[in-house]
């Protein structure tokens, strides 16, 4: 598989994503600079974490208008798989590829710790390999990860099973205490209605090797890779 990992000024998880896709999973992963107007021949796009354009104005607000994002819009419109991680999630929301917005953590603190995630549906390119009932332990590192959308949008997300992950406690229960940022309904990650674009605040790319304390992030990348391999018209990797 060929992955494009976007690179904005002040992206800082781009190399981690390339490392995981290339070294851990053995696929081709290429950095694509924000000024590029084309993605080239790619199977999926990763919008990585960081502080694109210094988080000026709003997180993701400026990145969303970069030339490469116009290509990503087109790629997504054509049904291509796009995964936004942390700042990448913020960029995708700002771009309108995902509904809602990420605002300042309720605690006003930058939270950098492992959290537990419950997967609400395996019916997506990003969750299909996550075992039923499995609680994922994956780190977060953000100051503005509080997911917000109006009540109508939240109702629609739930009705369409677009909420992919929620923050839970170690026992898998959705509690107020397990919510690190005040996100509505403990939402950690969502997908669009068509299910080909997803974003999450936690960092699965930081949880793919036992050396880093958790390998649970692998399930998310394995899901995406499996989905790409099974997609009609895809050559075997």
């Amino acid at each position, binding site marked *: 598989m060929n992955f494009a990992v976007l690179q904005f000024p002040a992206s800082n998880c781009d190399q981690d994503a390339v490392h995981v896709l290339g070294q851990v999973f053995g696929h081709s992963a290429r950095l694509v600079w924000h000024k590029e107007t084309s993605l080239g021949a790619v199977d999926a796009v990763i919008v990585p974490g960081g502080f694109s354009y210094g988080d000026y104005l709003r997180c993701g607000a400026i990145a969303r208008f970069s030339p490469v994002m116009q290509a990503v819009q087109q790629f997504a419109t054509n049904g291509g798989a796009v995964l936004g991680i942390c700042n990448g999630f913020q960029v995708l*929301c700002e771009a309108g590829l995902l*509904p809602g*917005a990420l*605002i300042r953590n309720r*605690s*006003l603190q930058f939270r950098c710790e492992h959290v537990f995630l419950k997967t609400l549906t395996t019916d997506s390119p990003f969750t299909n390999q996550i075992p039923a009932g499995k609680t994922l332990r994956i780190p977060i590192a953000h100051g503005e990860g*509080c997911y*917000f959308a109006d009540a109508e949008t939240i109702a629609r997300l739930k009705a369409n099973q677009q909420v992919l992950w929620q923050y839970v406690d170690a026992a898998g229960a959705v509690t107020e205490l397990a919510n690190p940022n*005040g996100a509505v309904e403990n939402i950690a990650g969502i997908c669009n209605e068509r299910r080909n674009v997803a974003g999450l605040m936690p960092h699965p790319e930081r949880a793919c090797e036992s050396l880093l304390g958790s390998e649970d992030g692998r399930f998310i990348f394995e899901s995406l890779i499996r989905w790409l391999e099974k997609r009609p018209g895809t050559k075997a990797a």
Partner: protein
Amino acid sequence: MRLRPECRRDMKAKIIITPKKAVLDPQGKTVQNALDHMGYKNVGAVHVGKYLEIELTGSNEDEARQQLEEACHKFLSNPVIEDYRLEIVE
């Protein structure tokens, strides 16, 4: 070529962006609490937002307003979480 002084009409846009009422505003809440602790009574809800000043070079106020309304909606504010007020002054 310099424009004749009577043709020059420098304008400035003032844009105030505030969080929507339904959106959690922990900064506002924290400032409100601090004001209360400092003894400033009769202080109600506080909303922390952003203020932008934009210098404009054209002379057509309607045109400038139309463009900035669009920019506010598309870029300067996020309608999902923020409201804005736009004012153009000379």
